[in-house]
């Protein structure tokens, strides 16, 4: 039996460079046996924070990174036949090869240009994307549609950057996107903030103590990855609550009706990794002054940044099965056929048989634009009417070309993607 592309095994590596972290997620999918998993790794670039303006990000650095990632994931990523030239090892099977590598670089990442250009020069096999406000807008709006929420609030919480994105369905069906950000220009300001009277109002420890100030300063300067100190934990909880609350209070119009609709809250960044779930919930609920019912998702491995766009784009391209059927012949076993939405698929029918019976049904809510039935059945007969091909055009109407040749190339690729081997 032929296998649809969507059912084929594949593995895709997505790397996100954001807030001095390299987050790598390798997704393996074999839908034919319902086997899907994601391998994740995070690398803190903080030890290089004073070197990022040097020529750290060179060919050796990235080679070494992917080399080490191979060991961590126990997965062959590099095609070593090319020596010093980085080439992706083509996907063969589980643990061998990847279908592609995408690197997403946050435009807020220190020395973004150095990193981006070094990757561009490193390998042509890597797809490069920039994570900016536009990227987040498309992602948040897409998630509202894809996950069928009316309101999605995404808090990306790092010590030096607090970003809140919101996508809310309006009465007219459009999705309104808003964002707010707090950026700390330097570490000293961030450390000194612990002495502010505003923060003290949320603390359960006395921050004027010399010892606490030293511990907080060390935590910021060294970029801890884990907190074992109850006092630091309390400061981070209070700091997070105050940051979210201040953001909300100074942008009231952007946070109206929060939690009143069918709401989901996503949390990402470093702070959710440090705080226990109870403290994190206190910060988010009290900071956003939430009540009502909402779903809360904590993304500790940046999976939503790395695969969120793929998820919503897949939905947009309607790459789901819209037709399934069987070809019955006199000589061969029944032959299953599938067709994907958004593609034009051409099935070659066996020609050795005298007669073929083709049966099929529209799936996943797909309908013919002018017919009421969903099932089709017909016979191909050599002596009467012999069909050479079965063509399923699953592209949604109207079909729009352009506006640029590049767009047409992409569209033609998508339309042709469902064809059988």
């Amino acid at each position: 039996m032929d296998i649809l592309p969507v059912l084929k095994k594949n593995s895709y590596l997505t790397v996100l460079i954001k807030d001095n972290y390299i987050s790598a997620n390798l997704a393996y999918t074999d839908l034919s046996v319902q086997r899907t998993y994601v391998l994740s790794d995070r690398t803190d670039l903080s030890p290089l924070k004073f070197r990022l303006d040097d020529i750290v990000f060179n060919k050796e650095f990235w080679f070494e990174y992917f080399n080490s990632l191979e060991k961590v994931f126990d997965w062959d990523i590099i095609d070593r036949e090319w020596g010093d030239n980085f080439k992706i090892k083509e996907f063969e099977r589980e643990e061998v090869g990847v279908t592609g590598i995408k690197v997403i670089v946050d435009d807020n990442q220190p020395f973004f240009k150095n990193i981006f250009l070094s990757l561009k020069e490193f390998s042509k096999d890597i797809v490069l994307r920039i994570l900016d406000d536009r990227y987040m807008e498309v992602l948040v709006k897409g998630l509202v549609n894809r996950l069928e929420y009316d309101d999605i609030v995404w808090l990306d919480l790092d010590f030096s950057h607090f970003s809140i994105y919101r996508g809310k369905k309006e009465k007219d069906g459009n999705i309104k996107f808003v964002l707010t950000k707090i950026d700390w220009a330097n570490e000293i300001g961030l450390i000194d903030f612990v002495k502010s009277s505003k923060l003290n109002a949320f603390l359960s420890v006395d921050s004027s103590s010399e010892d606490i100030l030293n511990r907080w300063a060390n935590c910021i300067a060294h970029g801890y990855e884990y907190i074992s100190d109850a006092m630091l934990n309390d400061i981070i909880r209070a700091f997070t609550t105050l940051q979210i609350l201040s953001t909300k209070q100074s942008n009231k119009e952007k946070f109206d009706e929060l939690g009143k609709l069918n709401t989901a809250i996503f949390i990402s960044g470093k702070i959710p990794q440090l705080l226990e779930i109870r403290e994190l919930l206190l910060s988010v609920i009290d900071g956003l002054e939430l009540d009502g019912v909402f779903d809360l998702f904590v993304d500790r491995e940046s999976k939503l940044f790395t695969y969120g766009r793929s998820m919503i784009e897949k939905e947009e391209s309607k790459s789901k099965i819209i037709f399934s059927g069987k070809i019955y012949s006199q000589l061969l076993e029944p032959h299953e056929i599938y067709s994907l939405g958004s593609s034009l698929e051409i099935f070659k029918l066996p020609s050795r048989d005298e007669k073929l019976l083709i049966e099929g049904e529209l799936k996943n809510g797909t309908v013919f634009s002018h017919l009421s039935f969903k099932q089709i059945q017909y016979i191909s007969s050599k002596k009467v009417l012999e069909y050479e091909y079965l063509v399923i055009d699953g592209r949604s109407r109207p079909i729009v070309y352009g506006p640029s040749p590049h767009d047409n190339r992409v569209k033609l690729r998508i339309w042709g993607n469902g064809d059988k081997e």
Partner: protein
Amino acid sequence: MEIRSRIFEKYTNYQCSIPLKDGDRVLVKGKKIKEGDLLLEKSESTLKKSINLPKVLNCKSNEGSEKYVLKMDGEYIEKGELLAQKVSSGRLNLTELFSPVSGVLDFSRIKQGYIDILGEERKSIVRSDFTGTINGVDPIEGLLISTDVVCIDGVVSSKTEDNLFGNLKILGDGNTILTEKILEDDYRGKIVWVGPYLYNRVAIELFERGAVAVLTYAMSYTEFREIGLPIMILGGFGSVHCDGSFLKKFLSFKNKFVIMNGNENQLFILSNSDFKHRGWFVSQYENQSVISRSPSTYGSIGKVLEYDRDTSFVLVDFGKRGTSLIHIGLLDFVDL
């Protein structure tokens, strides 16, 4: 995956400059320079008195005290002559500074708030203790050179507009917490390592005695914020253990030329080194060197004995300090 932090980084052909003062004469012949070669003839005068201007005139840290000075750099001043004057509170308050000694005014540290009054002049010869190339002499930048350097990242440093240049002076044995009682009279041209911990009063005394900058492993965050003088902290804030394995290597750079870059937060030591760095990434944790950020062992350097992936806890051998079980998020992997 973890990045292996290089405590002592090597930079080859690093381009920097040795600042020249009035009267300094460049003695270098040819483009190449090696250890022991004549570098400069410096005109140095004895330091008669250093005055901390913001302190005397009662200025705020960001006020910029130099605007109240009534004399010029290099001018001779008599004892008792008016040196600076500050009028405040709508002309109701007048603060005046009279020169405590006679001498020549030196404003080379005025950005740090100090005026030096110099005495008699003397000549001294400076020899190179590094190998490199002379790229030229610039009237503003000084002697332009390229050489191999060793770089150490500071945890934090006072923001300074310029690179600060000096000889690395080690106080005492470099490993003892010192008080101001042991200080010598003159630290001009020196970037001073005071040991594992710095008290504010020691720093102030050092600057009173002409120090260009002060280095330490740890100090109180509050005192660091209060002092407003060029200080670089290499370890952290509060009671931070300064590990012997770091100190041994650091102290080997005694008397070397060093450049403190407050903006980049890095210390450059003009010196060759035989460090062999390993790769950036650590994928196997056993037997790797780590520095602890756990409260009980903060600053100690040890070796990883075991790593439990399920709990993310690491068993670390700290030598004489014993072994500890620490979460991997509280360890920095280091290349030492």
